[in-house]
Structure formats: structure tokens, C-alpha cells
């Protein structure tokens, strides 16, 4: 096995093993993210007056897709990194000949693998309770949705990791994420599909990275048309910007790191 691949697979496997120790917590984490189901109920009721291309079943499918996407693209690296910096735990990671970013990434992927069976269970339960909404994306849509999901997770991770670097300057870097998350909630399609927004707002939103983190993959999953080229292009531009921001903050931040508490 290639050395780099072996490193990453081992890190993911260890992270998955660690997460599997917390089975009850995993179920509780999933159940604590039921907001899309609440919104689904509201929008299904309001669907007759809401306009847009989705009827009650369409809204049900859309918000189920939002739930799935949210579960698979969840990122908490800023909280983990901030705690590691503040408590000095980053020191142990810096002493190893591997960029600490790989460990954080592996811990997310390990958790995702552990979470996946429970996620399938929730979806199955939903279809049992509301069989009219049952659908399965075709192979082409599934492939495109998978690519969009991977890109959405990568961009979400990169953005939050870049913000996490502020922990070298401030002990409360997650305040930035809180502000960012507020925009994410409104502009990503999490609260409502973007086609219900006024045109002017939607045009502005489409220049931000947010719609491509939830709305675009959700539309692909439920079989609606999306401009994939534009989506991936916008994500690539934002991703490149955040990559350079992360590298810059990492290099200057490390010089300020005082290894407090370790």
C-alpha cells in the first residue's frame, strides 16, 4: 500500500473505531439535527401558496435530501482545532511528520462512516411513515450528487479550517464560525429552497459558496436540473481563495503558537 494512503486509511480507521465507541451519542447527534423535518412540515403545509416547482411531496423529498446532506457534510473542525490550540494539544500533533490537517479530516471521515448506518435507518423510517415521498435517485443523479456532496464537504471543511487558524490569535475563533453559520443557514437552502427567494437575492446568493453546500446537491438528489458547471466553478474559486487564506494563516499562526498548557 502506498505510504500516504496507508497513513490516511489508518487514521480514518482509528477515528472510526473511536467514534464507534460512542454509539448512543451518534444516535443522539443525528436526532438533534431534525430541523429539516420541522421545516419540511411547515413548507408542506405552505406549499400551495409558496410557489416554486415543489409540491408537498417535492418539499418532503427536498428536506429529506437537506437532512442527508447536512449529516454528510457536517464539520466541527474549528471547535476541535481551537480546543487543541488553547489546551496545547496541538503540540503532540505538530511533533508528528504529518500535517495535522489530515488528522482532522480523517476524524471527520471516520465519524461519517460510523454515522452512515444510522442515517440510512432514519431515511428508512421516514419512508415507512410517509411512503408517498419514497424515491431513489437514478445512477446518474446519484453519481452527480455524490460528486457534489464530496465537493460541498471539502469546501465546508476548508472554509472552517481556514477560520480555525484564527485560534492562533484569539481564544474564541468559533465566533467567526457562528457568524458564518448564520449566513449558511439562510443562503444555503437549509431554511427554504433558493427558488423561493426573490430573484435579486438569489442572484447574489449564487455568487456565495453557500447554495452549493446544500441547495445544489439537494436538487440533484431529488432529480431537478442544476447548472453543475457553474456550481463547481464557484466552489473552485471559493475553495482556492480559502486554501490560500488557510496556508497564509497557518504559516503566520504557527510562529505565534505558544504551546500553552503543553
Amino acid at each position: 500500500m502506498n505510504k500516504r494512503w496507508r497513513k490516511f486509511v489508518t487514521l480514518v480507521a482509528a477515528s472510526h473505531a473511536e467514534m464507534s465507541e460512542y454509539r448512543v451519542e451518534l444516535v443522539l447527534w443525528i436526532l438533534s439535527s431534525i430541523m429539516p423535518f420541522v421545516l419540511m412540515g411547515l413548507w408542506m403545509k405552505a406549499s400551495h401558496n409558496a410557489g416554486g416547482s415543489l409540491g408537498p411531496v417535492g418539499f418532503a423529498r427536498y428536506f429529506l435530501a437537506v437532512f442527508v446532506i447536512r449529516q454528510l457534510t457536517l464539520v466541527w473542525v474549528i471547535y476541535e482545532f481551537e480546543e487543541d490550540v488553547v489546551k496545547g494539544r496541538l503540540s503532540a500533533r505538530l511533533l508528528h511528520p504529518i500535517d495535522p490537517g489530515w488528522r482532522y479530516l480523517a476524524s471527520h471521515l471516520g465519524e461519517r462512516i460510523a454515522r452512515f448506518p444510522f442515517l440510512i435507518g432514519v431515511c428508512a423510517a421516514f419512508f415507512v411513515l410517509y411512503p408517498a415521498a419514497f424515491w431513489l435517485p437514478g445512477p446518474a443523479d446519484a453519481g452527480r450528487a455524490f460528486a457534489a456532496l464530496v465537493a460541498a464537504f471539502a469546501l465546508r471543511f476548508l472554509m472552517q479550517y481556514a477560520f480555525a487558524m484564527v485560534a492562533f490569535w484569539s481564544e474564541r475563533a468559533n465566533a467567526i464560525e457562528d457568524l458564518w453559520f448564520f449566513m449558511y443557514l439562510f443562503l444555503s437552502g437549509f431554511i427554504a429552497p433558493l427558488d423561493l427567494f426573490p430573484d435579486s437575492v438569489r442572484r447574489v446568493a449564487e455568487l456565495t459558496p453557500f447554495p452549493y453546500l446544500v441547495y445544489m446537491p439537494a436538487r440533484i438528489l431529488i432529480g431537478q436540473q442544476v447548472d453543475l458547471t457553474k456550481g463547481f466553478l464557484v466552489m473552485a474559486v471559493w475553495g482556492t481563495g480559502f486554501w490560500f487564506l488557510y496556508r497564509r494563516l497557518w504559516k503566520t499562526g504557527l510562529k505565534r503558537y505558544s504551546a500553552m498548557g503543553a
Partner: protein
Amino acid sequence: MAIIEVHQLVKSFRVADKEPGFAGTLKHFVRRKYRDVEAVKGISFDIAPGEMVGFLGPNGAGKTTTLKMLTGLIHPTAGRVTVAGSEPFQRPPAFLKRITMVMGQKQQLIWDLPALDSLRINGAVYEIPEAECQRRIKELADMLELDEQLTKPVRKLSLGERMKAELLAALLHRPDVLFLDEPTLGLDVNAQASVREFLRQYNQRYRATILLTSHYMADITALCPRVLIIHQGKLMFDGDLDGILARFAPCREISIETKQPIDPATLHAYGDVLTSHGRIARLIVRREDLTASVGRLMADFDLRDLTVNDPPIEETIARIFTEANANEQTMA
């Protein structure tokens, strides 16, 4: 050629000062006041390959800050450091593969998983082939007398077992240079002795260089022929353990046991009285006065026993720090 070279190393930190109370909090919120604290003030030393060196100093002396600079965790404010041929703060992978750091109060093992899982990660991260990794785990586990403990979740291990497992994880890649910060902290006497013995064996087997800080003098006296003493960021002493006594304690300790109880007041003529209880007393005398004092004691008292020793190293070092603190306060 030295494996660790430190020249005029300086580290200062900027810290925010806050006055107590509500007004202090408001002032701190609106306009923060900062001051620079110099934790390490221009220290220099070299360490040769295979040396075991004790790094001593009271809390806040700058020991851990120095170790962090030597391992590349923090950037020096000024000065030059070379460890294993690299500038540590550049953190090139080749350098990181040649060093390790063990902090007694911190752990790298994954808390909820058996130590073997963390060892597998280290094996992969340090690019040790699987078979070789297994061989090294077995070898080190034998040296550390670890067996089924490696398959138990780390949280279920005793402190001593955990520290041994930490050492195993830290040494799996067979580093040339070990930075050990209080590796026996909190361990019971048996576990301390066991860790010491392991470090001695590791040093002999792999000719590893070890820089060790510890508050337990037994660690230093058992392992380190050479000692660095740092106090308030300055290097006060660099030499062998005996040199500490010669430089800071040019005295000998005389213990006597008499046939009749001694009046402590009569002993002051022979030296400084450390203790005097009944027929047993301990005195400190200057080396140049030793022969005369012993002769007079033998002539003036009906002795059952007389022994001459160096004063305990622990007491000498404690006295060095106390006197240094007193001097600083006087100068301030």
C-alpha cells in the same frame, strides 16, 4: 560533533495584564495593556550524541519553554538552535522522524481505544513497515514489561502503565533525540524506577541522546551524568553532578554518634549544626576545614561512630534556587 547546539537562545512572550474588579475588566476590554516577559534569556549549550543530560530548574525557570524551542513547537525570539542537523522550527519531516518529546502531563494515546490502535497510527505516520512495526512494538513492550495492557482501552490503564505505553508510542520510530518533560510525574516509586531503568536501557541500546527535566532528583542522579541548571531563564550551571557540589556546596557533611548525649551548643565550634538529637548530630564544614574539624571532634568527644559525606544533592540544588531567589529579590 554535537547533536544539539544552542546558542544565545532567547524567548519572550507578550502577555496581557488585567487589574482585578469590574473597572479592571472594563479597562481590559477597551484598552489592553501588554508587557513582554522574557522566559529564556540567552542560554547556550551543546549536547553530544548519546549523552543523557538532566535539565533542572524550579517552576517557571524556562525548562519547558526551552524544550519547546528545541522540538520546534515554538519559535525562538532570538538565538540559534540546531537539533539533529536541522533548525527545529522549520519542522522538516526528516527532523521530526529523529526526535520525540514525552510530556508527563500530556498524552498522545487515544483515550478510548487500546494503545495498540495509537501504535498502529504511529507506525503508519512514521512510515515503519508493518512487520518491522510489530517487531519494534514487541521489543519495546518487553523492555517496558507491557503485554495485555496494550489491548486494553487507555482509559482503563493505571498511570504507570499509561506512561509506559506513552513511552512506547513516542519511541516506536526509534528517535535519536528524546526530550522528556517530567516523564515520571505522579508515578509511584516502583513505576518511577521502572521508567528510569527503561530509559537507561534505551540509551545504551540505541545510543539515544536524552534531555530530561524532572522534579524528582532520583531521576537525575540515576540517569544523568551531566546537568544543566536554569533559573529565571538563565543558565546557572552546566557540568557533572559532582561539579554542582564543588561549585555550590564546597562543604562536607560530618555525622557523629557519641557514647554520651551531646549538648548542641558545644558543637558550633566544629561547624554548622544541621541536626542534633541525643547522641547523634550532623554538621556541615568547609572542605578546607574538614581534617581539622574531624581531628578535634575525635579528640574532644567519646565517639562511637564518625562518617564524612557529600551533602545530599537535593538539598544543595534546593539551596541554590533559594539563594538565587533571595539574590534576585535583594537586587530588585
